């Protein structure tokens, strides 16, 4: 087996692939995504971290302050939440436990904090007083004072906490103040998971059914062809929606509870097996007439053994290509389904993020939709480039 993989890696196809710079770059990009997915699997960022509020709603990315209105809104959010803690029934405890992401309140006496808060409110009122002319230099100066007053309420993070805060706020926050970057990274894991699982299962089902249909012919062939003709005559998005909806029904509720992605997997596997099935069936019909298959029959091998050892291994290149096509297909379909509200539920995903971004876009806030689409675009593009290169490298007729 080691001999085999050495031959494969030093073979003509691999040499061609390695010379292809675009393919190698794409491979590196995919590697980064896989690393991200692995990181998420190891718990960085954790599921809680991506659901946690780290800043006021819709904070822009790269620590930009945004428009004057947004600065005022965000200041009001900080002051309101601190005031709630200070005025609560047990101020000392509430103040000690007050958190906003990695930020925590300065450890001073409640009275001292109260006075700093009052000062901040005063700055807020001064700035709001200029609301009619909020873009004027005077108003900007007031807003800067307000920011300083708010900064004085928090312990400024250092070291690891500062780095975490940078990561959390690098691409802004969504409508619930959750970090967009962390959610997008977490979604990479969801996407890779959905892509790998559904592409793998779909290719497996498609290869087995297609190979059986092509090799045995007769009623097996009729059945499989009838099945995929029927499936492919239904528009795939409708099929996806129906399957996803059925899986959300009561009958599957306990299963779905344990595996929230099950409806998505089911929908993708049931609609994606068709294209590998079709190509594999055609290839097997060609292969079974070849003399090495007849030679195996002359030796006396059973039909199953010939199919599994002599026919299916020779369709491996098709499985390879179909996997890379279906992987991106699944990722894109996940986004569409989630956008329609039928896909991933409970955890963030790029589709869920784009769905949530609908209202923000109307308000001129593009950080969330931009991040989600950007993450998806880069991965899909890299995979497209790679599968093109794979096809070129492993196609024997391509010089």
């Amino acid at each position, binding site marked *: 087996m080691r001999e085999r993989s050495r031959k494969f890696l030093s073979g003509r196809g691999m040499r061609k692939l390695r010379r292809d710079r675009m393919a190698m770059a794409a491979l590196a990009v995919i590697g980064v995504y896989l690393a991200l997915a692995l990181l998420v699997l190891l718990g960085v960022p954790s599921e809680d971290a991506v659901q946690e509020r780290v800043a006021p709603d819709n904070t822009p990315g790269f620590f930009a302050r945004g428009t004057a209105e947004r600065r005022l809104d965000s200041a009001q959010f900080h002051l309101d939440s601190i005031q709630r803690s200070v005025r609560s029934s047990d101020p000392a405890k509430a103040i000690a436990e007050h958190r906003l992401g990695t930020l925590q309140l300065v450890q001073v006496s409640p009275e001292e904090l109260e006075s700093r808060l009052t000062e901040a409110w005063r700055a807020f009122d001064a700035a709001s007083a200029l609301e009619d002319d909020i873009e004027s230099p005077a108003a900007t100066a007031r807003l800067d004072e307000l920011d300083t007053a708010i900064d004085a309420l928090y312990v400024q993070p250092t070291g690891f906490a500062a780095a975490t805060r940078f990561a959390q706020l690098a691409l802004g926050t969504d409508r619930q103040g959750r970090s967009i970057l962390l959610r997008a990274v977490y979604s990479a894991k969801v996407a890779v998971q959905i892509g790998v699982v559904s592409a793998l299962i779909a290719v497996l089902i498609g290869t087995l059914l297609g190979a059986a249909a092509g090799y045995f012919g007769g009623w097996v062939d009729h059945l499989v062809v009838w099945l995929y003709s029927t499936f492919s005559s239904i528009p795939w998005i409708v099929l996806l929606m129906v399957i996803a909806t059925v899986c959300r029904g009561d009958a599957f509720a306990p299963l779905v509870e344990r595996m929230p992605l099950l409806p998505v997997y089911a929908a993708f596997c049931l609609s994606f097996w068709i294209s590998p099935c079709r190509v594999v069936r055609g290839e097997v019909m060609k292969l079974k007439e070849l003399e090495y298959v007849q030679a195996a*029959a002359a030796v*006396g091998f059973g039909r199953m053994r010939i199919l599994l050892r002599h026919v299916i291994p020779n369709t491996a290149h098709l499985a390879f290509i179909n996997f890379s096509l279906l992987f991106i297909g699944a990722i894109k379909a996940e986004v569409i389904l989630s956008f329609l509200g039928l896909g991933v539920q409970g955890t963030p995903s790029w589709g869920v993020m784009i769905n949530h971004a609908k209202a923000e876009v109307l308000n001129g806030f593009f950080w969330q939709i931009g991040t989600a689409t950007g993450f998806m675009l880069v991965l899909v593009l890299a995979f497209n480039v790679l599968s093109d290169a794979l096809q070129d490298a492993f196609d024997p007729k391509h010089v």
Partner: protein
Amino acid sequence: MSADALLEVRDLVMHFPVRGGVLNRVQRRVHAVNGVSFDVRRGEVLGVVGESGCGKSTLGKCLIRLLSPTAGSIRYEGTDLAALGHGDLMPFRKKMQMVFQDPYSSLNPRMTVREAVREVALFHGVVSRDAADAYVSELIQKVGLRADAADKFPHEFSGGQRQRIGIARALACKPDLLVADEPVSALDVSIQAQVLNLLMDLKDELGLTVVFVSHDLKVIEHFCDRVLVMYLGNVVEELDCERLHADARHPYTRALLGANPINDPADRRPLTVLEGDVPSPFTLPPGCAFAGRCPVVEPRCRAQRPPLELKTCGHAVACLLEPGA
């Protein structure tokens, strides 16, 4: 029949149904082999010659039961193979193997030489698992390849080398009968001779019986003891190879011999070129299949089908114009 017959073939018929239409009914049949009878004697090399589409490859595949004949019997040492199912055939599979025509498609591209040969030997229990590697190496060297060829894949070999691997795979289960279906026709002439000589050596060394299918009379003459001449699914003449030039009597055999290039220009004779085409294998003519192209045809040839009759000892001809023995 004769006591030394390894294989007795009687009235073998192989028709391929052609299905079509909405109800997928059998619409017509390809009459590939139409009632062929002959013996294969133990230790001989029997040549089967004929033009493309005459059913010689189909005949070869029926002999080793790659195809199930429509009618007739194939007796291997007395057992009728035509009637056996997959499981009952197994002991006979071990005794009969085939060498295929196209060295480029007769080897599984994903199996190394070792895997391909080993698989066959182990399946039929010829060697134990521990001894298999040594057995494979020995066999590979026996067919004239270097021992280090064992771990290579088929695409690393030339056509002639691949044919040697094909022979090694066929011999892996130590068969008695080898059906060689045009084993050299896809090879260069220089390589053809090498592979033929290899087959001859192996035949002598292992005491094989060989059915050698070819369209090339020169190769048949060089290699075979007896020859069957086939035309449109029928055997038209059967005789010893050494008497082929002197005694061939069927007009088709004579035309085939006449079409062979002559080495010495002084020996050149006027060529009889066959006119017309082979009749369609879908609808056979009522009389002699060769009547439409025969240079000496008579009216009765078109009405009556000539049987294959023994004319002299070991020489049978299917022609109405030939006097009996």
